[in-house]
């Protein structure tokens, strides 16, 4: 629907690309993100363009300050670009209001954070149910789906535990179950193993591979090469620009 809107919009050329690459899950075209620091302008992203196809497993890697966090926030619809066009699953995100962005985050994006970001007071089940609450799903259905999601990450026996009663790896699996509960287009992970020991990291990465094999599109933002190597495609960011974009599998 958004595609037809862009046809006669100001971004006619990028809309043309969008039409051509209609299959792309993510389409970023000439994205700029500029922060105003006093009188100076700081360009966190300069003219970034790339596409991600459905079912891909992509790692975004780069040193701190490279702009990869900014890019992740844009992909995750937590923020809007200063300039450029961003389409996710056919939705033109770059011109959305805050509430529309919230809806996209709810339906299209599943976040996995470095520090898990679970609600401390809520049980694992309630944490997983949260996105469904905001999606307006009825309580009984919510309960069933959240239970099933926890079972799929092998936490079926931990549904009523609170985060502080779970290990780091278990918490991250709760977070993954939460990320997947609404069948999002993308699983977006920000340093997913950053707070885990190496053994647990391997488990989580194995889970990611399993999810990818099951057809999920995964984007991992990281600075660890071991994590990036698990992906099928790696984009390297430096100084706000794409330095390298290579398919490794």
């Amino acid at each position: 629907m958004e595609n037809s809107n862009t046809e006669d919009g100001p971004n006619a050329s990028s809309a043309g690309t969008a039409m051509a690459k209609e299959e792309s899950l993510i389409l970023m075209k000439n994205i700029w993100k500029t922060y105003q620091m006093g009188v100076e302008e700081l360009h966190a992203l300069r003219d970034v363009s790339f596409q991600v196809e459905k079912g891909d497993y992509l790692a975004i890697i780069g040193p701190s300050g490279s702009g990869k966090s900014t890019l992740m926030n844009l992909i995750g619809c937590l923020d809007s670009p200063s300039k450029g066009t961003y389409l996710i699953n056919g939705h033109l995100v770059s011109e959305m209001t805050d509430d529309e962005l919230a809806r996209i985050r709810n339906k299209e994006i599943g976040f996995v954070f470095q520090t898990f970001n679970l609600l401390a007071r809520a049980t694992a089940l309630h944490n997983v149910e949260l996105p469904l609450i905001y999606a307006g799903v009825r309580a009984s259905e919510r309960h069933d789906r959240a239970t099933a999601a926890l079972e799929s990450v092998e936490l079926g026996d931990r549904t009523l535990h609170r985060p502080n009663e779970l290990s780091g790896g278990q918490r991250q699996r709760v977070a993954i179950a939460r990320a997947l509960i609404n069948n999002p287009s993308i699983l977006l992970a920000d340093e997913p193993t950053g707070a885990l020991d190496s053994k647990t990291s391997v488990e989580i990465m194995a889970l990611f591979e399993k999810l990818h094999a099951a057809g999920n599109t995964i984007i991992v933002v990281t600075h660890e090469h071991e994590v990036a190597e698990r992906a099928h495609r790696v984009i390297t960011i430096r100084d706000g620009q794409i330095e390298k974009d290579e398919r490794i599998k």
Partner: protein
Amino acid sequence: MRLVTSRFLENLKMAFDTLRGNKLRAFLTIIGVVVGVITVMLISSIISGIQLAVEDQIKSFGTRSIFVYKMDIGIRFDRPSREERMRPDLTLEDALALRELSEVETAVPFLNASSGWWGNATIISANGKQTSNINLTGTLPEISVAGTEVVLEGRWFTQAEVDFKKDVCLIGETVKETFYPNESAVGKTLEINGREFRIIGHLEKKAQLLGDQDESNTIYVPFGSALRIKPNADDVFIMAVANEGRIAQAQDQIEDLLRTRRKVAFGRPNNFSTATADSIIDQFNSITAGVAIAMVVISSIGLLIGGIGVMNIMLVSVTERTREIGIRKAIGAKQSDILIQFLIEAGTLTGFGGLIGLAIGWGLSLIIALFFPSYVPYWAPPLGFFASVGIGIVFGLFPAWKAARLDPIESLRYE
């Protein structure tokens, strides 16, 4: 609609979870609201109690009764003005003239022959006891029609006893208790300023308000007899009884007639006043309405302080839970979702305070009811509860708005 309710219940559940997680803080926050609601409950139940008692007492004078007096009748806090005190007295003849009116069934004069403010005490003694502190009233047999006094034992005096100024009397319950506490007083005698009066009746105890003068501390004697006891008595109060359902017409007729008899010039205000049970109740209600407004103001202060406490704690809560807000936004909460969540939380907090206040206030007013006429009016609990919830929502608005406006990226980074 179903979705909205389910979302609301979900928020309510989350709010309860949060409050349970911060019991002490929640309790301290709502003390102001609790106190405010208790105030509303107590004052409203006391006012309602007094109101009911006053209505009962005034109604006991009869719904057909019209009171006529030279000074203004009703509940007053000022002293009668000089003009009022200088007005000519009503007379026995006035009362008899009122009886001729078509809408008036009867009219009864009450001559006050009690002890005056200065000197000439009316001394009453019997059975070895003596007092001057009794209301002595001269009246006519038609008082039985008025129905304001009920004869418990004995009878009213007859027209003959009035015509011949017989020394007979009826006594109120308090007078009986004073002189003949453990025996029937009817047939006994008592002395009024040295004259011996035969007691021919004993009256039922009258309804009484706390602190009000004792209506049962009264002796009724025939009108003429009262004048003989106190020849200079001139303070006459008239009670007229209107035909059934014609009280307004009767009141008009009475005023017209008395204006003529008392030669009030056209266009001048009455130099007497008339009142009915309803008009006095109305007057009383307008006073209690004023008190009720004062009550609202006073309890508003409590609720306001409670509200500021709520705002303060909600602001702290929003800051503390910045990260939670970030998480919720990341997984799809809209600004309105966050706003509603915090509003419901604030409303639940104060609503809970309101319920505690209602429980305590109700308990206290039950205790007060043991000593004082009071009852909780039907409107007080819902008012108290909804005012509490409203306070939470109003004072929660700013913190909730702040929470809703938080930037998700900043919030997720917040430690």
